[in-house]
């Protein structure tokens, strides 16, 4: 756990430093890819609070991301709201709808939970198509204003987008860490490991699950708002179950469920890989599927698990010796 605690703080700092260091040098294309990777990391961290902490596989996360995107798009484009206010509203809207979804979905467990949230994801997608006055229907929502410039980045929207995405990731990550350390976070872990034991310890199982789902929805909504403003366009296809809903599962599982920092690695890998292997773009979704299958079969702890194992091999020799010594002494 000690090592994990170090990674938990070290990794985000490394990523932050690399990303910020890249800001002055990178061209617009690299900046865009990085921005999307950071945004997907935000989504992955928010999703890990649900999947990793509580062990419930929801396939409605893409829909909740979409709710945030459309809410912000509507408010900034049609109602002329300030972007920051609209992002807050998007987060609240996603949290509200997420809470309603959770109240229904947590009546079930296991595969039924997955099927029910898949159904919600599919119906939500239908709503994006049908509610044309709000969402623009099939054609999507066009002409969404960009993100207002931060001081010093006024004539550089690409860099501005990246910095805003990084700030959102940092806020999400920090909030997720606080959540994990809170009493509700501990309760979520208890629910994931053994619901009956959790109940017999007097843990409010329902409250813990609901809180995790709502938390996770809120930050998905905020990420959706940033996505809408960056793209200046949102269409239903971005939020289908098989696009985003499936992708977040891939990020979190191959990154390492429940670690919060692992999913960031997962998101970066999945987003950047097809960009590096240019020609492979058509195979990308197939590759996601194969990666997901590979990790769940052979490395269920994900990249994070491998990183920790590697660290254990390298400098930890003396430490593990003392640990055994102490242990045998205790006997």
């Amino acid at each position, binding site marked *: 756990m000690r090592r994990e605690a170090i990674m938990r703080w070290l990794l985000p700092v490394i990523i932050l430093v690399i990303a910020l260091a890249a800001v002055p040098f990178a061209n617009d294309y690299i900046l865009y890819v990085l921005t999307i990777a950071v945004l997907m990391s935000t989504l992955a961290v928010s999703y890990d609070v649900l999947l990793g902490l509580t062990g419930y596989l929801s396939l409605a996360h893409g829909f909740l991301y979409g709710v945030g995107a459309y809410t912000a798009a509507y408010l900034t484009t049609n109602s002329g709201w300030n972007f920051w206010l609209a992002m807050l509203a998007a987060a609240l809207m996603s949290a509200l709808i997420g809470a309603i979804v959770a109240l229904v979905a947590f009546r079930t467990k296991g595969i039924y939970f997955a*099927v029910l949230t898949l159904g919600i994801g599919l119906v939500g997608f239908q709503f994006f198509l049908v509610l044309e006055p709000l969402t623009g229907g099939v054609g999507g929502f066009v002409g969404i204003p960009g993100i207002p410039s931060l001081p010093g980045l006024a004539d550089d929207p690409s860099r501005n987008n990246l910095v805003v995405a990084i700030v959102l990731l940092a806020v999400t990550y920090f909030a997720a860490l606080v959540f994990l350390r809170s009493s509700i976070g501990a309760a979520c872990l208890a629910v994931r490991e053994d619901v009956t034991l959790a109940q017999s310890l007097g843990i409010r199982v329902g409250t813990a699950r609901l809180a995790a789902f709502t938390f996770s929805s809120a930050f998905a909504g905020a990420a959706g708002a940033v996505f809408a403003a960056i793209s200046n366009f949102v269409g239903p296809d971005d939020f289908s179950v098989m696009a985003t809903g499936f992708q977040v599962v891939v990020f979190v599982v191959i990154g390492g469920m429940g670690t919060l920092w692992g999913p960031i690695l997962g998101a970066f890998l999945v987003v950047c890989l097809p960009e590096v292997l240019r020609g492979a773009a058509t195979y990308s979704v197939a590759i996601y599927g*194969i990666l*997901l299958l590979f990790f769940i079969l052979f490395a269920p702890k994900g990249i994070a698990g491998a990183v920790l194992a590697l660290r254990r091999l390298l400098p930890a020799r003396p430490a593990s010796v003392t640990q055994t010594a102490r242990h045998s002494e205790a006997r």
Partner: protein
Amino acid sequence: MIELLPQQLVNGLALGSSYALIALGLTLVFGVLQIPNFPHGELYMLGASFTYVLVGYGVNFWLAVPIASLGVVLVGILLDQVGYRRIDRGGNLSLMIAALAMSTVLQQVATLLWGAEPHTTRTPFTGILRTPYFSIGIYQIVIFAAALLCWLFVWLVLHRSRLGLAIRAMAQNRTAALLMGIELTWVRIATFAIGALIGGIAGSLLGAAFPIYPTMGLNPVLKAFVILVIGGVGNLWGAIVGGFLLGILEILVAGYISSQLQDIGTFAILVVVLIIRPNGLFGRAEVLR
């Protein structure tokens, strides 16, 4: 509007037959091995695609159906051996994620092989049967008959063969079955083979009436899960009856309320049923009765 009711019921029954046919294989695998075989929808899609390819090479449709279905059986066994067998003790979450992954991989492979655009097989059932009250397509009768025949086939295998006895024993109590010397490996292979066979037949036949495309299995498999909730996991007759009920309900909703609500209506049923009975209408107690 009421004079349309007989026609609506017939249409609902026809639609329901296709749902029942898909749910049958899913409920068998879920009931016996507790595996939520999400890629069952892709087995259905492959049944349709294989048939499309074979017919394209000039193979007679009625010969293409069994060949395609056998191809699907091989894929089904492969899914289990590659994806599920290794993580059988890893818990539900691992199985679900593996299922989701394989589902996507199969969809993508199909996209690479045949493209994302819908195809159609030239349908061999073109006739329409007319009666004073309703008319029904020949292909709808074929699907209806196929659903009942497949149910009968599975029932006979389960209840009139040694293999079936082993499968039922495994579904009731895995530990006890293993202690009695029943081999899990063969039960798994047999269960997946039968499940995939029915999925393949369903795709093969329905592909002759509906467009064939890589994600065509998604909606049916979701509905099949709804039917499992209505009919009980592992309950074969429940899959048939549940399929008919869902089909009729959807057609009635589409006909009398709004066609846009057809899918949302299904989903509403799922929500309501799960709220009343979180483990399905019949729970797990009904396995393979």
